[in-house]
């Protein structure tokens, strides 16, 4: 702790301060030696790194646990799912046949997009038929068009 030299002289004369208090006061006023500076710097950096490293380890551990529980939750409905869509199978089958490339895609999404296109076409008196759904290789960004649009929206103000 820094004490003004003038005040310190007064303190030393008048106050019967304990040795501990006096030492602490003196500590701030004195210029540091090279060894002290080096020691403080190394200790300081090491403690900051150690504290944050512990947090990194904690986050990795908790992240792993949450990823696992997240996957379990996702896989549970997946196992239960086949029983339900069995009755809807005939309805979805023709679309699935037309869309072999999108076998893993959700048929409902394709149907919804197709319905939107059909609705737009109906206004012009045109009819569209879905022949195939192909996966488009994403450009350099590695993100879907929706993700790119979202990112663009989110980062545009900056």
């Amino acid at each position, binding site marked *: 702790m*820094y004490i003004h030299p003038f005040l310190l002289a007064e303190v030393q004369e008048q106050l019967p301060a304990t040795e501990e208090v006096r030492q602490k006061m003196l500590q701030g006023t004195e210029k540091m030696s090279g060894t*002290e500076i080096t020691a403080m710097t190394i200790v300081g950096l090491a403690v900051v790194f150690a504290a944050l490293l512990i947090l990194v380890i904690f986050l990795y551990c908790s992240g792993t646990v949450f990823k696992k529980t997240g996957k379990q939750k996702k896989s549970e409905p997946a196992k239960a799912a086949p029983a339900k869509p069995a009755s809807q199978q005939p309805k979805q089958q023709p679309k699935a046949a037309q869309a072999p490339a999108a076998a893993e895609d959700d048929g409902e999404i394709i149907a919804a997009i197709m319905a939107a296109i059909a609705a737009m076409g109906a206004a012009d008196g045109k009819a569209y038929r879905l022949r195939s759904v192909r996966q488009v290789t994403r450009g350099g960004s590695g993100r879907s068009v929706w993700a790119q649009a979202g990112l663009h929206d989110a980062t545009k103000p900056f």
Partner: protein
Amino acid sequence: MGGVIEFFTNTIEGLWNDSGIHALFSGGGWKNLLMILISFVFMYLAIAKGFEPLLLLPISFGMLLTNLPMAELYHANLWQLSADGHIDYGAVLRDGGLLDILYMGVKLQIYPPLIFLGIGCMTDFSPLIANPKSFLLGAAAQGGIFFTFVVAGLLGFTAAEAGSIAIIGGADGPTAIYVSTRLLTGGGAITTGNIALAAYTYMALVPIIQPPIMRLMTTKKQRAVKMEQLRTVSKTEKIIFPIAVTIIVSLLVPSAAPLVGMLMFGNLLKESGVAARLIDTAQNALMNIITIFLGISVGATTKADQIFSLKFGGVMLLGVIAFSLGTACGLLFGKIMYRVTGGKVNPLIGSAGVSAVPMAARISQKVGAETDPTNFLLMHAMGPNVAGVIGSAVAAGVLLSVIG
């Protein structure tokens, strides 16, 4: 008749001698005048240039008020340690002016943690939780603090002064004020006001200071690295995070507990989703009130007789060195991570490790987009950026433990 005239002239003379104008143009009054002019410069920077106006404007106005002679709004002598090594708060309450009373909140370390509460309410730690490696970048950027400490120590500053100057490198105003008020007693050439002025000025200058260092330290190939999309973080993780960070950091560095504790409390309020009213108060009304009190009272500590010294020049010079070193350390660690991960980490996010939220992250985004406009680094840079806030609070705690 002669007596009346004499009485009249004596009264006028007394009034003149007691006026601020007389004080301003006699003795060391020119220093006050110069300080008032400097306060105008900071007001101009805040109003016309938009340099951290929410803090620079109250600080500069506090600077103006404190340097008006005879106004007696702030008394530096009241804040010097008494014979028993403590501040006489009774004397402050009895004899202090308005700004002395407000400054008690700074000196008693009340305002900075409350500002951290508001910051916690506004901060989203998801990018950090999704990519815990970011913590290391936040830690590396604190190298600016410790290397500046070395430079300041070698230049002959005392441990308390060197620690207060070094914390400017943390690029976090409340933390800088928190540390400097604890370390500096007001009797020396450097005051909390000097430190705050330097910290906020350089924080406003982050867009000018950082990009050249970023371009200098990275190759075009490194700047063009596109990072993997971050995973989605669950609500439970977001709730556990502030509780865990508070416990871990407070156990390791207890002196960082007021800052980190309040930051994380604010974040818990936000993530819990059950305390909307409290969040609203903490991040709006409370934070605004505290910002006004903090700014104007810290500005008041910049008394003319204390600011005109070589040491203040040293503070400003070392402040910019601290910022630059912090940026360089973050980038350097970013480059190490780039190598270790086989080019999956863009080193530019390392510079966001100096706190300055969210400005430093925006700079990473901007410099990255200069190389490749389709590169979006903002969310990746927010990880080290918020880690930097925690990192600088931990570094502050370490400095206080070692020096205080």
